[in-house]
């Protein structure tokens, strides 16, 4: 018998980390330490839970955005989907039991994703253009549904989702973490997940391997719509009110989180873990700028620069 060398390298997780990840982690740690030292209010359970609640919206949207970016696309309509689904889940409570209202809102999210995916996969249109168009349609539809902010009728709607606590720990971030784990599992351990990732790398090679490219692309956009819808519902629940004007620019935060987390806009690269940390980093930065009383206009400038720096540090030489 010949002895055969193992082909699968048993690399420990620590060797899989790239230098860009280290830069990211170190920067993150320094930021964290310095802020804790400078601000008494930063490293307190109250503030940390606060941050964790604030990142949930972007956290959910970013999962969906990650999936479409992996598939080589992008979805600009997520911000508007947040508004529409939030206001539907809230407003429909007047007509039906809350669980149904939530289900309808989620279904609407899936439907929006299906329409986006259909135009992109079946009619072979550019994701940017298709979702830019649907962005306008959805925003309009939101105002058609309700011009005024809607308050939830059902008190449970507030206390269970965005406003719920287990002891001192808020519920919504826990749900989000569970969904990040599910997204990781989906992308790495299931057939559709691997297929979507491969499509972003080379659509034609995947088609010629006998895999249904159109179906998987539509699935990716449906998942994106679903997560945007979930984000909208939880946001309305946390704020206790749903605004038709909410969500402008949310798509950009989500794209930023995915890219900071190692995603590449041409598709095929990126992951759930990276995106999670991207969301976290953006959340901390927002919180810090607020705590240091930086004016909101300056905040935007600082955030833009941070995104650029993050992307440059991940640049392949």
């Amino acid at each position, binding site marked *: 018998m010949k002895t055969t060398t193992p082909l699968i390298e048993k690399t420990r997780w620590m060797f899989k980390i790239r230098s860009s990840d280290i830069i990211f982690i170190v920067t993150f740690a320094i930021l964290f330490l310095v802020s804790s030292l400078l601000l008494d209010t930063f490293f307190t359970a109250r503030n940390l839970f606060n941050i964790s609640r604030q990142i949930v919206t972007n956290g959910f949207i970013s999962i969906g955005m990650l999936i479409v970016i992996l598939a080589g696309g992008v979805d600009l309509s997520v911000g508007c989907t947040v508004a529409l689904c939030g206001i539907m889940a809230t407003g429909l409570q007047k007509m039906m039991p809350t669980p149904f209202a939530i289900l309808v809102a989620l279904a609407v999210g899936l439907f929006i994703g299906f329409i986006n995916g259909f135009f992109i996969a079946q009619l072979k249109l550019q994701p940017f253009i298709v979702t830019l168009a649907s962005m306008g349609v959805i925003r309009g539809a939101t105002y058609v549904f309700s011009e005024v902010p809607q308050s939830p009728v059902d008190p449970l709607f507030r206390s269970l989702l965005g406003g719920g606590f287990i002891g001192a720990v808020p519920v919504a971030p826990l749900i989000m973490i569970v969904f990040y784990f599910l997204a990781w599992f989906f992308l790495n351990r299931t057939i559709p997940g691997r297929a979507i990732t491969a499509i972003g790398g080379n659509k034609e090679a995947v088609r010629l*391997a*006998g895999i249904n490219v159109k179906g998987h692309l539509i699935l990716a956009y449906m998942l994106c719509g679903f997560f945007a819808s979930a984000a909208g519902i939880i946001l309305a629940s946390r704020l206790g009110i749903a605004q038709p004007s909410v969500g402008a620019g949310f798509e950009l935060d989500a794209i930023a989180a995915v890219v900071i987390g190692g995603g590449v806009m041409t598709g095929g690269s990126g992951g759930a873990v990276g995106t999670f940390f991207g969301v976290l980093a953006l959340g901390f930065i927002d919180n810090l700028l607020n705590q240091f009383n930086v004016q909101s206009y300056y905040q935007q400038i600082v955030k833009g620069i941070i995104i650029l720096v993050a992307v440059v540090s991940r640049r392949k030489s």
Partner: protein
Amino acid sequence: MNAAAFLRMEGITKKYGGTTALKNVSLSAGLGEVHAIVGENGAGKSTLMNILSGAIEPDLGSISLGATTVTIRSPHHANSLGIRAVHQEFSLVPQLTIAENILMGKLPTRGKRHIVIDWPKAYEKARGILAELGFAGIDERTRVFRLSVSQQQVVEIAKALAEKPSVLILDEPSAVLSKEELSLLFALIRRLKAEKTLILYISHRLEEVFEIADRITVLRDGEVIDTVMCDSIDQNDLIRMMVGRSFEEIYPKRTTKIGKEVLTIHNLSREGEFSDIDFSLHRGEVLGMFGLVGSGRTAIARSIFGADPPTSGSIEVDGKVLRLHTPHNAVNTGISLVTEDRKRDGLVLTGTICDNVSLASYPRMSNGIFLNRKLQEKLVEEKIRALALKPQKIKAFVKTLSGGNQQKVILAKWLLCNTKVLILDEPTRGVDIGAKVEIYHLINVLVESGVGVLLISSEMPEVLGMSDRILVMCEGRLVGDISRDKASEERILQLAAGVSREADGLNIALSGITMEGKA
């Protein structure tokens, strides 16, 4: 010869980290010479030419042009010294016109400030350059993306020649040219030679090298093995110098018994591509398919696989008619296709070896939707080992592999899904001789296990060396079905050029290929 040398590269050494790409390489060539540089992939040909064209700097060594020693700092600097290179990857902007591409950076202007482009003059100039090169038939206002790959090659060469360089580097120029275009290119090279241009010709195809070159420099593992006069050596010796292997060893003999019909094609047509194709493929058979560029070979392969479905006709696998013509259905029935351009439609470059090999076999590795990773790794590992893929790590990214190993990843993908009919479209394009031999060996192993192989190739030695039977395509029609013992190079070329009637075409076709095997 050395006394007349215009270009002298001496002691060129280049290291990348631990590996030495070039070791003390010296090369000299005179004006009016066609100097071929041959060697396996990775022998250092491209590195040497990249140094000469200013894309990379050598660690050691000197370059002199005429009497002066030069340090080439950038491609732009190389251009100003009269060195131009035509690379395998085109540097054209597809959305712009031919004229604008040829004259890029030097468009004629008018007015005092030289801001406004003088288009009539630009078109005239471009037309002049094209006509001078013997390509007068192309409209210089056509946008480049509308051109065929070989026409783009012509534009690329025109661009390089627009400034009358004294040294012209042609890196695998024939890879995308048809035989007619190749003979035009050769005529052009002879004319440039008469005008005292030094041409450095890099090619895999030794037949061409023998036809066009005066001298040949052989590189192996970054070192110059020898520089020889073209007429003092034959092809077998040259191959031995390049790889240390003889012609017989490249095409090993097979003793497989040919079995039942596995694929039967009836009256297969696809509008505008090919019509009324009839043939059958047996288990354990290698069926070669030869044809010039545009003869419909690739289109047939894609049709059988369902990538571009046929408009009429039938495809039978093991006597069962295929109803749906989609890649999905083809894969399920046991047909697989290794495409011509592995980077464009064969590989997921962002993925690992494991991802790529699994791609067509996910249903086997899962219970419905969840991936069984243990099983996946076991299956992939088996195939990688069977194919002797060299960096044996299944988690390595395919973009880090060499061309030969990438091709093996694609073969592994199809081996894994129990293929019965394997269609190979130019499987050894851009692959070095070492990897070629391994791929031929793999084909033989597959055939012995009962797979039927349809081997599409424009390399005559490959078709003659590997096939049991040879199909010949010409202008979308199947014009020949010849068994190996009755096939000869002349016969195949005659059929492929469609010149049983037209005598002129034969000359064109033959001019591109020298008689292989007789050397």
